[in-house]
């Protein structure tokens, strides 16, 4: 186990001051704890697949919600496309270890994603939810850096974590906040 499980309150706090419905918590906790029970590279990569599937599902749902204006919608679509690229690569890396990649996101993940957005209304709250999701993903990848062994997996996940940081910076900006408030992006703040 490489990370302590996150509480629902911790996960919601990462929305950056925008109040999120309690229904958002399971999805956020699911992303944050993607590697919580992982031991070894294969299990961590399996967690990364699940994490990225969750992000892809969420961004698709955000885009389809119709609640984002053109600019925010384009941002969500672009980020969703990049999450899909992450998913493709971590899936291939998992397969190199002989791990099986689920063709579809787990049912509980899809359910959590759908329920997460039922209580989130308006563009600001949707972007804040996306930001909270990115922040929890960064926290998960931060932990993964401390558990992975193989060089290529460390580099891949670090490059993904940096990209999630960029997403988070632009989401902060879209919410009128400072894009880079901290010198260290651990996903914990």
């Amino acid at each position, binding site marked *: 186990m490489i990370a302590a499980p996150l509480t629902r309150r911790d996960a919601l706090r990462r929305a950056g001051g925008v109040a999120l419905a309690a229904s958002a918590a399971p999805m956020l906790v699911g992303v944050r704890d993607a590697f919580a029970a992982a031991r070894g590279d294969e299990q961590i990569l399996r967690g990364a697949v699940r994490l990225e599937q969750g992000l892809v599902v969420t961004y698709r749902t955000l885009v389809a919600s119709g609640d984002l204006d053109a600019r925010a919608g384009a941002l969500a679509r*672009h*980020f969703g496309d990049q999450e899909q690229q*992450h998913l493709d690569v971590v899936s291939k890396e998992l397969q190199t270890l002989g791990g099986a990649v689920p063709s579809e996101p787990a049912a509980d993940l899809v359910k959590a994603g759908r329920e997460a957005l039922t209580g989130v209304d308006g563009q600001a709250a949707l972007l804040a939810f996306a930001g909270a999701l990115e922040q929890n993903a960064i926290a998960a990848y*931060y932990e993964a850096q401390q558990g992975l062994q193989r060089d290529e997996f460390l580099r891949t996940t*670090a490059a993904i974590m940096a990209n999630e940081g*960029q997403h988070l910076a632009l989401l902060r900006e879209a919410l009128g906040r400072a894009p*880079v408030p901290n*010198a*260290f*992006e651990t996903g914990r703040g």
Partner: protein
Amino acid sequence: MVERRAFLAVAGTALAGGVLAACGSSDDDSSGIATETGAEQSTAASADVAILNQALAVEQRAVAAYHTAAEHLAGARRATAQHFEAQEREHADALAQAVMALGATPASARDLYAIPSLDDADAVVRFAMGVEQIAIAQYLDLIPKLSSQNLRGTFASILAVEAEHLAVLREQAGQEPVPDAFVRGAT
């Protein structure tokens, strides 16, 4: 500034303590460093010291670069450069502290750094983007070489911030801020 090549003194990097804590490190991070300190003069710790000093040199150069950049910018761009300079100082300080925690001496910053010709604000932003690209590539190269798992996390947290800096600078340059799904940097 229109000089072909300007040189500048590096501002000091010895800042107030507690930066490892500021990096979001919990007690487990601190204890991780302390544990490694106990394994005195181990080969792994020596290698980590060398890697830390390599990263420190990257940060010292970034501090100097943003210091110069801020002098050549105005308004919001200047404020951004100053903010990023302060964050690079935090990185440098954290790395220096990690070196000391391993019982070694942090590498000193150079007295002078070569800075290219910075003819206008756009050139300054492009220069800063280049500094970030190099830093990102360096961190990606160094992370797997570290033996300390805690330091890997710290390096990744710095890498993510350099990537965020780059996205903001690209926006200021009128470029797509996040063009690639994998942040690789450039050497």
